[in-house]
């Protein structure tokens, strides 16, 4: 009897979710607002793409037309290879540096953040609250005045003018730990850890086999942030060798050269946006899937 009643309740409640908490007018209104804001947001992307197809004479028109190209051309893109060829160091080295620094930096940052966040969120380690508070508050300190002490520490570590000057500073960025810790606090039940402990798993194994898959949505989001930052990173005063420079550093000099190169500059910035956009769609596209497979509901 009770069983039947509960079933009825369930059917009833689902119907209510549809009927009472969502009105059709509300849905329409929501979508309209979203679309408006979205259209407003993509303007710079559209503008960059449109401008990259403009011939020189159209680039010089002021004010520039926002979305219209009268005679679209590929010349801004086609000129890039010849500009690159004149470099002293082969282009492939810059491309390799960029890919290496971005991937290694992102992977290490995400791993270090997730494992530290796990300890701060789920263990009873001494001083963990103090450590976490310091992590949080460090986000509120302006980075500019930290430049000199950081430079001294980098040179003490001997990483100036090596690829580590890109990677090491990125690993302990406080935002990653903060994000992962809040996520684990909110959505990884302590019962999971207890269960793993009863099964005799150590902390490292628990982290790797149970927590890591659970927090995939958050890992993907963090990967996305880190990739974007590392990809466009231009270090200040820590890299001097030409063979250690990355794409954003060299491309900004390649396409500099006043108005004549402004089309090429725009083509370059459109091309440079492509990798972060790809990473965005891969990571956000797999969000949904990881949600249902993680099994941490409830």
């Amino acid at each position, binding site marked *: 009897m009770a069983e039947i009643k509960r079933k009825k309740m369930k059917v009833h*409640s689902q119907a*209510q*979710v549809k009927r*009472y*908490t*969502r009105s059709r007018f509300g*849905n329409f209104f*929501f979508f309209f*607002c*979203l*679309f408006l*804001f*979205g259209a407003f*947001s993509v*303007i*710079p*992307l559209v*503008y*960059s793409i449109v401008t990259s197809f403009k011939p020189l004479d159209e680039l010089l028109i002021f*004010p520039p037309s926002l979305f219209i190209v009268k005679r679209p051309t590929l010349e801004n893109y086609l000129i890039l290879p010849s500009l690159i060829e004149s470099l002293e160091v082969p282009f492939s080295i810059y491309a390799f540096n960029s890919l290496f620094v971005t991937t290694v930096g992102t992977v290490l940052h995400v791993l*270090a*953040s997730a*494992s530290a966040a796990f*300890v701060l969120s789920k*263990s009873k*380690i001494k001083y963990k609250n103090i*450590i976490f508070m310091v*992590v*949080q508050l*460090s*986000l*509120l*300190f302006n980075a500019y005045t930290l430049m000199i*002490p*950081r430079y001294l*520490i980098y040179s003490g570590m001997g990483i100036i003018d090596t690829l580590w000057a890109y990677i*090491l500073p990125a690993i*302990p960025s406080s*935002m990653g*730990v*903060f994000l992962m810790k*809040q*996520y684990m606090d*909110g959505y990884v039940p302590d019962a999971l850890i207890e269960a793993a402990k009863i099964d005799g798993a*150590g*902390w490292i194994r628990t982290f790797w086999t149970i927590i890591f898959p659970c927090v995939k*949505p*958050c890992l993907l*989001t963090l990967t996305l*942030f880190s990739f*974007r930052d590392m990809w*466009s990173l231009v270090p200040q005063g820590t890299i001097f060798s030409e063979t250690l420079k990355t794409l954003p550093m060299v491309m900004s000099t390649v396409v500099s050269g006043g108005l004549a190169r402004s089309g090429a500059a725009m083509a370059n*910035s459109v091309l440079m*946006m492509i990798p972060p956009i790809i990473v*965005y*769609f891969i990571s*956000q*596209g797999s*969000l949904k899937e990881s949600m249902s497979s993680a099994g941490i*509901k409830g």
Partner: protein
Amino acid sequence: MKFKNTLNTMKQNWELYVLLAPFLLLFFLLTVLPVLSSAVLSFFNFDMVSLPKFAGLGNYIRMFTEDDIFLTVLKNTIVLAILTGPAGFLLAFVLAWMINELGPFLRTLLSFMFYVPALTGGGLLIWTIAFSGDSYGYVNAVLLSLGIITAPIQWLSNATAIIPIVVAVQLWSSMGVSFLANISSLQNVNPELYEAGAVDGIRNRWQELWYITLPGMKSMLLFSAVMTIASAFSISGIITQLAGYPTVNYAADTIVSYLNDVGSVKYEMGYASALSVILFALMFGARKLFVSLLNKVGE
């Protein structure tokens, strides 16, 4: 004896230390040490050429008693933080919440669109053109052709117009970190809670939001708030790119743009450090205020 006990627990928990160490060591070296030394430096005069000279509270006293520019940029920083902080925080949440109602395809597409300004970073150029001071600037051109104004307005060198423009551009480009973090956590709120809520008499989406969704993501809201505070009090690149530094009568310059100038143009690192300590204190207060508000959610 006590020491031995501590040693024993440390032995039992060695795996925890292994997991924490990579982050903690680098964090201490590259963030904690620099922050501490910068805080110490705020009590010195340091021109980056000769050795730092102890100045006691001199930098702080100078800030509040002799430096009119500081008082202006302090006021601007607070005004801009009040205008962009709460609104940016709410916008990042509300947009994520609205998007969460959509199917996976629309959700991915729309969140991408919102994320574009933060992703591309270089979108500011378009605003410079839009608010250009001659009649060719888009805003002026539209207002002129509609007959609302008769002469073009110098938007970016106009002390009253510059603050609203900066606020708009900042909000427009702020759908980054907290926005996407909100999306990933909204999808984690247990759907059974919504069903249970409907049974318990929740009648519309607003009640659902207040009683179920918000309390379910408190931890992420704190993250989102701290990130928003950090960016709302540190607006500076936008202003400099739009209107240069300094803006007319320092009408829109903030503590961050001022301390960049003090440090890299005037070479007064001690004073710049003192400025960033004051900025830290402001953000710390804002964070405290937010935490006490957050405790009221869902009541």
